[in-house]
């Protein structure tokens, strides 16, 4: 979080003058600030999750500098460089949920691996540098819709949590039963360094300079590394970003 803020502050002064200097009629420059809400979630809630007891999207900021190149007619192309955060905090009641407790040691060698019954709290907060590429279509109205793909580089990673008020069974659902008051896990190092997917969205012109935007993005690549087995289902980033932009 701190790291991202520092990066944002550092690049902000450079963005505006440069964009102004290079601005011409063909290529539009814009900057956009926003926030995201969503989840790093399995697609289809696994049967082991019995109840989502709480969900907190947290404050997820994004800032991007974009280029829009209108083609003859109503279509256009757009790209950007975006700094963004994706994350959430959830609390779920689980039944027979396969996991690993590594107590934050991040070591795969020493940990309790097994099936857990109880409450699991998951805290995800990842920061990415994202490059989207969009095709755009401008209506005869203030509305422009866009669709495309994105690729993200992981800048900062946090995927951790704890299990509470339950018990774990060692290795298998019939293994030794061990009561758990609180056990921690940290899979931060297992978050994939590259995340890529698709996004669709729309800009709505408020006046000649300002626009509101909404962007929905879905990562096709799983959140965690390929050989990560401590959760037996894939997680995908699924986020809605809302923001306001300024067109130069």
């Amino acid at each position, binding site marked *: 979080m701190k790291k991202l803020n520092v990066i944002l502050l550092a690049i902000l002064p450079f963005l505006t003058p440069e964009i102004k200097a290079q601005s011409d009629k063909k290529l539009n420059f814009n900057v956009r600030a926003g926030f995201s809400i969503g989840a790093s979630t399995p697609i289809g809630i696994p049967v082991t999750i019995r109840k989502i007891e709480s969900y907190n999207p947290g404050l997820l900021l994004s800032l991007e500098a974009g280029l829009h190149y209108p083609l003859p007619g109503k279509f256009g192309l757009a790209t950007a460089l975006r700094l963004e955060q994706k994350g959430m905090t959830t609390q779920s009641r689980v039944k027979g949920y396969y996991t690993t407790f590594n107590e934050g040691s991040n070591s795969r060698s020493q940990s309790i691996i097994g099936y857990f019954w109880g409450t699991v709290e998951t805290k995800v907060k990842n920061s990415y540098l994202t490059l989207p590429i969009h095709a755009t279509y401008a209506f005869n109205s203030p509305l422009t819709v866009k669709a495309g793909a994105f690729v993200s580089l992981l800048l900062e990673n946090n995927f951790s949590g704890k299990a509470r008020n339950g018990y774990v069974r060692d290795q298998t*659902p019939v293994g030794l039963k061990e*009561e758990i008051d609180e056990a921690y896990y940290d899979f931060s190092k297992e978050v994939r360094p590259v995340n890529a997917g698709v996004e669709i969205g729309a800009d709505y012109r408020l006046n000649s300079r300002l626009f509101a935007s909404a962007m929905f993005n879905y990562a096709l690549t799983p959140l965690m590394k390929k050989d990560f087995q401590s959760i037996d289902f894939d997680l995908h980033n699924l986020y809605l970003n809302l923001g306001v932009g300024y067109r130069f």
Partner: protein
Amino acid sequence: MKNTIFYLIIPAFFSLSGCIKPEAENMEADIVKVDLPDSVLIAPPVISNNSVTAFVRYDKLDITAFAPKFVVTDGARISPASGVPQNFTTPVTYTVYSEDGKWQKNYKISLLQNTVSNTFAFENWTLTPEANYNTPYEIVNGENQNVWASGNSGFSLVAPEKKPEAYPTQRSPNALEGNYAAYLETKSTGALGALVGMPLAAGNLFLGSFDGSKSLTAPLEATLFGIPFNKKPLRFTGSYRYLPAGPVTDKTGTPVSPQRDDQCDIYAVLFKASADKPYLNGSNILTDQNVVAVAQLPNGNQTSGSGYHPFDITFKYRGEIDPADLAGYAYKLSIIFTSSKNGATFEGAVGSKLYVDDVKIVIE
């Protein structure tokens, strides 16, 4: 317009992540409870993850056709079926099948008639499958009695290697007599143990059972001390050898101040059991008001030389014994060994070694 977009996107978000699915069938396959008539019981059954042991009166039942009743995990099935007579002259293996049909677990059910012997030579050891640690057992009139327990099952969760020598409680060929002695070594629990304030595991061995499920949350309550005993103990004898390792560290892993060497502990306790307190545990075994007599090694310092040292300790009685209650198995005995005296509170020195062999309770 913006609202329209919002209403389009939010349902998309939720339809992708979906709703909570109907509950899956249970995967567990536990014996939760064993119903045995009070009239036949000497002591309530002890249920572990793979065994059930109860002391019963053979004169009060037909052991060749006895039908215990079981309560198992919801939806699970037990075979042979609950309430169907079996011949319990030797232990009977039952299999519990989980509701979802994907998991099963075997239980060895022992109904023991002979009260425990008063001599313990640590010659017979049984290997727990998968976890791969040894536990001694006794043979009384041809009946195998799994009356000894240790904290090894708790250690198995953090054991770096699942082999008998990696565990705090082991058998050793370095015996006074026979093939084996009990060997206890205080072990490190590694990074995982350190983080939960349990940086070491003292070797421990005791008469009773170990409730592995409590080893992380309430380790003192995980050791359930006591087996039914119907004779009056007078003295506690045996042989031991103790080699403490370096200075004692506390539960944060730092050396205690003032610096001191580790000590072992060897003691025997007779207590009166009650229905609501069938066992004593690590928190009250020496202090509970039901304790009747204690015989404890006066000091657990290093033994000199390289051989075994005999001990002969007289039981100190705190109260009177009721002979009728004694004959009716109202009293319980536990013998407890540990390679680090304060191991229960995770103080000790990793590497402290205690050998014990040929232990006896001299009775009246």
